């Protein structure tokens, strides 16, 4: 089984958002704010499904707080806690 570090998760989340879900410029980085970049309820659910496909972890929606969705990095940290806790 692949080991999911925080950095790898952040890279995965960033890639899904950049390539599949958001229309963003090159200035969009793993530290960019996701809500400001246009993440909405549909995109966040699609993101959660993609994360589940890759890691097997479904993140409960109660954890999708503005703080956790501040950036790909903060979301990765939140997912990492749950990947680690499996």
């Amino acid at each position: 089984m692949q080991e999911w570090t925080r950095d790898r998760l952040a890279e995965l989340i960033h890639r899904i958002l950049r390539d599949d879900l958001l229309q963003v410029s090159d200035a969009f980085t793993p530290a960019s704010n996701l809500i400001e970049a246009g993440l909405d309820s549909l995109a966040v659910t699609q993101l959660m499904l993609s994360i589940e496909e890759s890691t097997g972890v479904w993140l409960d929606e109660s954890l999708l707080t503005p703080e956790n969705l501040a950036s790909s990095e903060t979301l990765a940290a939140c997912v990492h806690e749950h990947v680690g806790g499996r």
Partner: protein
Amino acid sequence: MSTSADASDVSKSGGRLRLTGADGFLRAFDVETRRRNGASHLAQVVLRLGPGFDAEAFRAVLADAARANPILCAPIRRTLGVGTPAYRLDAARADGWPAFTLHSGVQSAAPGRGPIPPLFFERLNEVRSARRGELLRVDAVSRGGDQPGTDLAFTWLHMLFDGSGSERFVQFLEARRRGAAPAVPAADRPETPPEVALPRGARERGAMAMTWQRGMQELGRLRVRSLAGPARDVQQALVYDVHSFAAEESAGILSRAASLAGFLTPMLFYVAAAVRAHDAVLRARGSVPESYVVPLPVDLRPKGGEGGVFRTRVSMIWLQVRADRVHDLALLLADLKEVRRRAIREHQVENGVAAMDYALRAPARLYAHMTRRALRGELCSFFFGWTASFCDGVDEFFGAPLLDGFHAPSVPPSPGSGVVFSLCGTHLNVTHVRQQGVLSEAELALFRAALVRALTGGA
């Protein structure tokens, strides 16, 4: 979901612009509603303005917008009566459409902003010809009383814009007045790719459409009942009222929505509130269904990019919840979240695009007919809309302050009831559009009380 720069929606001659699948689906409603109920399937957005509205500047900017964007008055026709229906940009009208009328003689002397002009209800019940390009009509009614100003209604055939597009159009016109927008919105240029790129293979697209269709048919396993009951051939008679919550009360509702439904999915809280209001009336009638079915529009515009103004750019997911879960808000919300998540997981959004795309080619009324047959004559429990911040960034419109604004989309005689939520500045507006007579006075009071209680959490 992905986009691709495949075939443009505009024909090589530049004269025909393809309808989106959702346009085709709504065209089916228009055909059905005109045939059975003697009215078009229209939608309305209303701006309640303070003093200072510059009607002549508005008239000029609207005409200029139509010249640059002929879709605003383009006939919708099939080529030689067959083929895929399209906006005929090459045959756009040049004789008074989009129509604008300033009704300077109409006054309301009521306190505050007064009642909504009855003319606006009349407009919602008109017959418009898509074939003749009668797509958009704007009416300005001057208002007296202690808050003088102008009430402005944009009433359009519900294909030209969707709810979000209509707000974008208001923003676009105001930006044009200030000289701050190009004549053609960037995302409406012909080279802009479609929001959802469907597979090229007809078999794959067909499978997607069939999956969506099967999902709709399965909704009928649990009995559904709208306030108006199954479809009937009666004259459409729409009216609406708007409940505006004060700023403090609105803040409380928004906070409750975010904490109970999640800050990204507050619309599920509003769906739940609308379900409970309808449930209160049906319980009082002693005709509680087994389930409530609500079509939830999903905006397909790119996230973070500039979205288009014209044409309907939505898909739909169908929410179904059991009536025996409605009494408990936490259970109801948990079910709504799960149903929505499952729908997205099962690609209902993309499948809906494929299915609606077929509505352009198939006999247009087929889908509505199949849904009604699956649900024993019903289409759904009620219509629902949530558009968040109303005309974000528009504080002033053609020289007049924007005091209030809301949506009032049509709802056919069955289900006969629709609820739309939007935020205007700091206050929450709830528009309840319904067929006249679908609720008695006592039922209307019960509906309103249940809705307010569900939103505020009050006793």
